[in-house]
């Protein structure tokens, strides 16, 4: 722990437009830049999903204007099979990397972690600025693949070798498209490694006086745990991407074995292993699921506690449970590979930790639910999205029981059941976490309130809509509907097409409902009701800043001193039923666990 007050005077505010808003060293600006990039990415990803859904429901119907996006991919506005796969790959890559990882972790974490620990900034501001700009470059490289001659890669976000490694002989987009994909993800990894380094150091070294580790809010704990995961997971994916690039550009064969024949041509490769890519990818890929969801757990816990007016049943148990999820996430990755051809005994070895990981997940859910019991729950848009997160996490979590078992995976692997499972537990839940965080922290970030009525309309349409989209995916999977098909030509899939049409209509309507959020976000930014410093009567340090939004160095001339655990709610304080962390006031019924 540092006493940083001596450095406060050195932290000068930038004066030029470029240093203030573009190449900013301020963690708050970088957080907003990440949020802005994630917002742009999610809009692109959502439009791609609309196009895919329309095509799946009404295959071969022209989609007006589609040829403008790609004349080759949509001649006569009808999507070609390869273009469907290209859009699908871009949808998943954009969403997983540039939305689900960046918004809850890099965006909110950047903005609020230094403030919640009581620091004036991150310890390595230049690395932090690089983190954003390298990540943003990765995003631009990925999007640029739309504009190369045969379009982006069609190999799915998992980029299984040798389809991804063998070059353009294996299909459109498998040459330049894959190389751009791999460069983009390698850049993303560099960006997140720099970010993780900053997050870890901020948490360990930049805490203000009195801020012990156990006094960190759950959101800060979640970002810290996530950054440790990020440091280890992205460090594996980055070299994997570099090897993939070498297979394309340097004539190596890391992922391609000998004896492969494409278009009657024997491929000039030998000695590579296709399963090697899967092991490297999923060693990153499964922790990535938790990298996406653990920040959401932290944000939702933080928002729920404030609105329940009580701390969680146990702050520490929740931290230990999130930590267990992080550790176990590396031991379970093989459940993605039950039918991959790896040794079948390994499948059993990966199955048990996968089943065991349900225990910390259940503990987290039960602590949330047990804490709602007996609370004084306030309903607002932020708490509605936080409660919606809990509901979605339960729904997405129980389907994990099925996929953890190799024998059941024989039936469900690569079906829509998997698509339904990961969308609910990782994508929708994480997005509900982002929404909860946005409605909750917007007043602090912009000094204005978001419109509550519009927020609630947005919540209702999104909550019901998300269930209408993703619950039927499970039914399709149980019926054996294979994923990643651009059309359903198999006889046994014909009865399922009406279900796909229902899902498409739900997806279009739920997507449209997001325009309400966009309007609310931009309108409130400029014309929203001015916010007070602490509109939710919350306790943690972000609500103790001298101004709203916080000044450049967060706390003015003097860094705060912390006297309490983060969540002193349900007590008799001079300000009401809460006592802020910075208040030296004695608390009668202290919630300190330490």
């Amino acid at each position: 722990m540092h006493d940083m007050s001596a450095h406060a005077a050195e932290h000068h505010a930038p004066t030029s437009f470029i240093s203030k808003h573009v190449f900013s060293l301020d963690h708050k600006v970088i957080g907003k830049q990440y949020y802005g990039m994630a917002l742009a990415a999610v809009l692109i990803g959502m439009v791609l999903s609309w196009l895919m859904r329309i095509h799946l429901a009404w295959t071969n119907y022209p989609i007006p204007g589609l040829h403008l996006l790609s004349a080759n991919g949509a001649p006569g506005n009808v999507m070609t099979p390869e273009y469907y796969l290209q859009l699908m790959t871009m949808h998943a890559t954009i969403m997983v990397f540039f939305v689900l990882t960046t918004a809850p972790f890099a965006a909110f974490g950047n903005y609020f972690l230094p403030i919640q620990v009581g620091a004036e900034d991150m310890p390595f501001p230049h690395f932090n600025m690089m983190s954003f700009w390298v990540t943003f470059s990765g995003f631009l490289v990925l999007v640029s693949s739309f504009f190369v001659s045969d379009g982006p890669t069609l190999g799915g976000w998992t980029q299984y070798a040798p389809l991804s490694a063998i070059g353009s002989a294996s299909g459109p987009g498998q040459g330049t498209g894959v190389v751009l994909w791999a460069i983009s993800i390698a850049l993303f990894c560099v960006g997140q490694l720099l970010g993780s380094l900053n997050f870890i150091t901020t948490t360990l070294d930049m805490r203000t006086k009195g801020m012990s580790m156990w006094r960190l809010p759950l959101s800060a704990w979640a970002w810290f745990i996530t950054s440790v995961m990020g440091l280890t997971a992205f460090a594996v994916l980055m070299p994997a991407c570099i090897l993939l690039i070498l297979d394309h550009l340097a004539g190596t064969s890391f992922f391609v074995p000998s004896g492969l024949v494409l278009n009657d041509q024997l491929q000039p490769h030998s000695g590579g292993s296709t399963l090697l890519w899967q092991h490297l990818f999923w060693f990153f890929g499964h922790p990535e699921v938790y990298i996406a969801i653990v920040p959401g757990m932290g944000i939702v816990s933080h928002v729920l506690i404030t609105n329940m007016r009580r701390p969680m049943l146990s702050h520490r148990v929740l931290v230990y449970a999130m930590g267990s999820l992080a550790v176990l996430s590396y031991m379970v990755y093989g459940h993605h590979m039950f039918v991959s051809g790896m040794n079948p005994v390994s499948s059993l070895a990966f199955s048990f930790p996968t089943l065991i990981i349900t225990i910390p997940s259940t503990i987290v859910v039960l602590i949330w639910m047990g804490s709602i019991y007996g609370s004084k729950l306030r309903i607002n848009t932020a708490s509605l999205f936080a409660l919606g997160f809990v509901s979605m996490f339960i729904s997405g979590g129980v389907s994990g029981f099925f996929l953890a078992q190799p024998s059941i995976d024989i039936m469900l692997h690569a079906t829509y059941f998997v698509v339904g499972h990961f969308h609910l537990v990782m994508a929708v839940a994480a997005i509900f976490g982002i929404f909860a965080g946005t409605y909750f922290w917007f007043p602090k970030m912009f000094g204005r309130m978001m419109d509550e009525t519009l927020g609630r309309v947005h919540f209702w349409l999104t909550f019901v809509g998300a269930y209408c989209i993703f619950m039927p995916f499970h039914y399709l999977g149980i019926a054996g509907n294979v994923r990643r098909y651009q059309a359903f030509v198999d006889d046994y899939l014909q009865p399922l097409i009406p279900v796909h049409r229902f899902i498409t209509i739900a997806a279009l309507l739920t997507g449209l409902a997001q325009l309400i959020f966009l309007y609310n976000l931009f309108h409130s930014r400029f014309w929203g009701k001015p916010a007070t410093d602490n509109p939710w009567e919350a306790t943690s340090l972000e609500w103790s800043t001298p101004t709203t939004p916080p000044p450049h160095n967060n706390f003015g001339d003097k860094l705060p001193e912390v006297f309490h655990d983060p969540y002193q709610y349900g007590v008799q304080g001079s300000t009401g039923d809460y006592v802020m962390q910075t208040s030296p006031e004695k608390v009668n019924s202290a919630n300190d666990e330490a």
Partner: protein
Amino acid sequence: MAKFFAVTIIVIAIVSAIPIVRHTWDPPADISTHGGMIDEQMSETMAEAGISFLASQILLALFIWKFSNSRPGDKIKTFPGGAKAMVWAAFLLVGTEVLALGVFGVKAWATVYLTPPSANAIPIQVQAGQFAFYFRYPGPDGTFGPLHPDMISEANENFFGLDTTHDADSKDDIVTAEMAIPVNKEIHLLMHAKDVGHSFYVPALRVQQDFVPGLDLTLHFTATQIGKYEIVCTQLCGLGHYNMKAYLEVMSQDDFDNWLKKEAALQ
């Protein structure tokens, strides 16, 4: 608002469960000797996951209903047993439940993957390539000839790269685009990938296994119902992935013998 939310959660939970309870969208009926174990495992998991899902959602809804309308004087109450009760519940209820599922599930997996095929299982080789399956039967000599990838030619219909001029074992091999098998006889499937990753998924047979380029894998199963079933690819293999399929015809032994003779004559 909170009460409406609670009701919405309960309605969503119940409506979500209806198609499962009514079996509205089931997989094709099982036609294998081992599939019953997978189906049973699936039903047990469905029961346990279904109860967990409904109970959790309903409890969440009830807590939201009850604790969102507190009055200013109300005190915060703690759930009986506090966090300890939650941790115990997670370990005892969910821990034992999922571990039991895991232990019982080993049997079905072991039957498919950890038990070797019987000595008299019928060997059939399947090769997956963009975007078709081809099947090879060893012919009267009971031996497959070696593969020569450099001789593979779609144009010459030499799908496996067989050298029938020099390899004696290849001369009587029978190559087909459709898979036929006799009913109630164990099949030993030898899986070979020609180009990229593919998968062999027959929902009715309760089998799914990836083809791994550079690694030949095997699978064994016994079909118990005569009929025609679909084999589909589940591993993304390129632009024609959605259309990569073949038919599996399960026949009586006599029909199978005749079919094989007919196919041999066509080689």
